[in-house]
């Protein structure tokens, strides 16, 4: 009889629970069914009238049902809370395709980032960065580098001078830094010198009166031509990726011998010239006072050219216009 009563109570509880949709009504429900004057309390009062065996049995039933009601209410509370927040979240929509904060933070100018990248690559194999003046003596730019007095590079049509006697100029190559560095240091030398160079060129799609180069120099015991090859192959793979092909073809520079140009091809495309290099000419070592038999190699690469090749930039002017639309692309 009592059990039947309890079953009814639970059934009615479930009905009431179904109707409760907020925490307030759930508290009320808890009071109604488990509180001091609730039907369950009433039933509990009846226990004393029962036999010991029934007491135990009925007591357990009441306990079970109380716990069940409690658990149901707690579960319902959690469900309601979850529903509430779920609804709240469902109502908070964004269109994530909008870039409100597009382009925050800035990047280096692409010239700087290419220079940094090249410097990093060489730093990983033991080169440090050297730097020196941009307005230089003709001696450091030409004579020391074994450029004969009649060489066309010295013409006013090629080089920008800053005095009438043509003793001072704006460096046409960052090899001047190598000369300064060798005058101040003894081998072993492993340096790269990134920086600005100047030529008497009108600004057009591939020329600029100001551009950037990175030159490198290694002078050490028994540095050989195979070392030069290995070093530049390493650089090319690091910079362009490992699937790039490299070839060396003979060339001529006054300051190196043998001299070569390095051509690369990636994705089986055309062969493109990317850098000039060679074994440092003995005359250069003599000019900086190194002992006879000193060996080393040097190389130079145009920064704008690397950037243009890698990013398909069509006009060198872009680098110096500094239009934000350009700057933000890199």
């Amino acid at each position, binding site marked *: 009889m009592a059990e039947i009563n309890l079953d009814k109570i639970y059934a009615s509880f479930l009905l009431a629970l179904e109707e409760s949709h907020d925490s307030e009504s759930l508290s009320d429900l808890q009071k109604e069914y488990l509180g001091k004057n609730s039907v369950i309390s009433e039933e509990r009062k009846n226990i004393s009238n029962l036999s010991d065996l029934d007491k135990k049995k009925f007591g357990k039933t009441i306990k079970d049902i109380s716990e069940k009601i409690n658990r149901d209410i707690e579960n319902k509370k959690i469900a309601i809370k979850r529903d509430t927040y779920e609804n709240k979240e469902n109502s908070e929509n964004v269109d994530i395709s909008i870039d*409100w904060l597009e382009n*925050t933070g*800035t*990047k*280096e100018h692409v010239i*700087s980032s290419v220079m*940094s990248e090249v*410097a990093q690559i060489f*730093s*990983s*194999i*033991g*080169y*440090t960065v*050297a*730097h020196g*003046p*941009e*307005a230089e*003596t003709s001696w450091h730019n030409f004579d020391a580098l074994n450029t004969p007095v*009649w060489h*066309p590079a010295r*013409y*006013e049509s090629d080089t*920008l*001078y*800053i*005095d009438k006697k043509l*003793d*001072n100029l*704006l460096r046409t190559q960052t090899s001047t830094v190598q000369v*300064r560095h060798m005058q101040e240091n003894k081998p*072993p030398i*492993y340096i790269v010198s990134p920086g*600005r160079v100047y030529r*008497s060129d*009108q600004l057009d799609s591939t020329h600029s*009166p*100001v551009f950037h180069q990175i030159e490198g120099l290694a002078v*050490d015991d*028994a*540095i050989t*031509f*195979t*070392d030069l*090859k*290995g070093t530049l*192959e390493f650089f090319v793979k690091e910079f362009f990726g490992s699937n790039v092909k490299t070839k*060396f*073809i*003979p060339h*001529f520079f006054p300051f190196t*011998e*043998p001299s070569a140009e390095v051509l690369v091809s990636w994705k089986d495309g055309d062969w493109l010239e990317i850098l000039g290099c060679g*074994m440092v*000419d003995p005359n250069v070592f003599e000019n900086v006072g190194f002992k006879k038999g000193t*060996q080393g190699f040097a190389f130079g690469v145009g920064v704008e050219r690397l950037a243009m090749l890698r990013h398909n930039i069509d006009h060198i002017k872009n680098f110096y216009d*500094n*239009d*934000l639309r350009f700057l933000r692309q890199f």
Partner: protein
Amino acid sequence: MIILKSWLNDWINISNIDDNKISEALESLGFEIESTNNIEPNYKNIVVGKVVDIYPHNNADKLRITQVDVGSNTYEIVCGAWNFDVGAIVPVALPKSHIVDNFLIEKREIRGVVSNGMICSARELGLWDEHEGILLLEDSLAPGTDFSTTYDSQDTSWEIGITPNRGDCMSHLGVARELSNYFDIKISENDFKLKSKIANVLKTNSGKIAECNSYVSIEIENFNITDSPFFIRYRLSQVGTRIINNVVDLTNYVLYDIGQPLHAFDRDKIFGTVSVRKAKDNEKILTLDNQKRSLNKDDLVITDNDIPIALAGVMGGLDTEVTKNTHNLLIESAYFDKVSIMNTSRKLNLISDASIRFERGIDFNLQLKAINRFINIFSTNQDINYSSPIVDDKKNIKNKSVSFSNNDIYKILGTKIDNKFITKTLKNLDIDHSITNDDIKFVSPSWRYDLERPIDIIEEIAKHYGFNNFDSTLPIGNNRNNLGDYWNSKTFFSQQLRGKDYQEIQSLSFVDEISNQRFNPEKKYVEVYNPIDSTNKYLRSNLFSSLLNIYHSNLEKNSVSSKYFEINTVFDKGKHEKYENIPNQLYTLGVLTPSRVTNVDLRCEDKTFDIYYVKNLISTLIGEFNVKYLQKPGFHKRLSFLILKDEKQVGFFGQLSYELMDDLNLEDPIYLMELNIESIDSTFKETNNFIPLAQYPFIKFDLSFTVPIDFIASDLISFVATKLDKNENNIDIFDDYVTEKSRNLGIRISTRNYDQTYSEEEARGILDMLVNEIQDKFKIKLNKSQ
């Protein structure tokens, strides 16, 4: 330079070698291939014909009717050209054949007469640019022969770059010599011998100057100015030379063939002894291009009884020019000094095929051979009479014998190269040599000026060995992963600024005078002596002008106000701090901060910045520093400060003057900052001692004082700090209210004791102490709170 396969084949038998193999060879030998061109006939089905009859066209005065024998048949063809007679051998386009540009020839009625095709000019066959008459072919060709089989109509040409040290390769013979070793094929010999029939009329000599080492001449009589042979015109046109007449074409031909520039004079316009001397200052000559050239003593002239008749090695004179009426020739083959020819040709801006070759150095034993070659070809095609050559060779140029240790080759190249290979290479290159396991001894041939030192021969061996056949090894330097202070500081500044949304720029170093004067009127600017653009002939003395330009142009172009920085060099004429003889140049960081920055997040207002932001930015970049007020040109009268680090001046910041803002059309105030990067120890790392964290609650006072306008707030802060130096403190200015008459300064002091919680009474005691001390010290008054 353009080279032709069929022409190379005269010197080295490469007709069976695949073009790609030849390209590969050229490239590996150091000839940069600019383009490769497969030459194909520009026509179809052209046959050789013989004109057997000619008669007038009744309806057209300018046309003639010809009967042309084409082997299988004879056709009537109408022709507008008059440069041939009966018996002429000509190229004929019969109906259904194609001439240049795929133009189809059909049977066609011309003024009432049916023409069975067309007799063609060189231009109509796409051969060369000549259209004044039809192309006359050699008499020996049989009518009916397929025209395309009568010469090398299928050919290949390469346009190659020749490095300045290899003047000897500026001819087909020169390139053939290089290929000879690559393919191991011998160079053909040419053993033509002169058979002189006439005596010399003129005397010639090389003069008394070292700049003309040898002068060889020959006289030719009994010849006609005419078209040169077909193969010469074909080859010259393929290498890009204009066809002129047999004499001029042939001098050009010898130049492209073996590399010796020749010059032809009309002998009858020369009256005395031909010699060479330096020009006199202001001496004049009328050159072939009808220009009066003013010379000086650096130029070389060929003279006739001391009167200049040609600009040696550069251009002939008009007075002795070979013309249609020339009957007798004097051909000159000389060796002129490189530097002298270079100076003259650059100075007069006269760069010719001849001058380029002299500049780079021609074979000093080639002069007589070139005369031989010229006569050889000329006499094969025309019956001419010529004198014996006059040779005046000073023999001043000799190549020295050089020897070096065989082991040096391995020492420099890093790959062991077999002696056999070395011997074979030197032999094929005509380099006199002897080789043992210990030593190599060599003398370079007369055409090589680039082989003077052991390293030159080592390069030669490496080149012929093939650069791509060498091993690759990777030496590791002594400074692994250390970019050095210079690069590290640049990187550090750049990273800090980019983290704060500053955009890096790279602007040109050249500016106009005003850009320097605005900010550095006290400096002397470095000026380019030969500027590209005379307006912007100065090197910039500051980065401000460039930054402002870029700021302004982006504001105009893109309507974006943004923050910028640039790291580059500024110049002035002061002394360089490290090196002698060069102008002062400082590696500088320039930073531009606008007071209003366009917010990229368009939902938000623009961001605003002020001078305090810039000051804070500087401390991010260089750590603790001091400022000193200093009025600078171009800047706001009051907001203009030196940056001092360890008492050394390292930079400057301030607000752009309102006047300049107005001049530059800027609406929002701009803050500018410049730091001399090299004067800052980039390794700055200030190690602060840890301040322990007090565990007790803080007490806080907000105090407001009436202070003089020029009161220095930081003095107040440090004073309070000394008064509370046993505590953990936070002392900040929270308000600075300035009117014309007064200034109120609010200071917020929060302080904690390390040992106890302050009672209300103790707190009151501290407050009173502070107020009294401050009022006493600074003679300022606490504002009573309302």
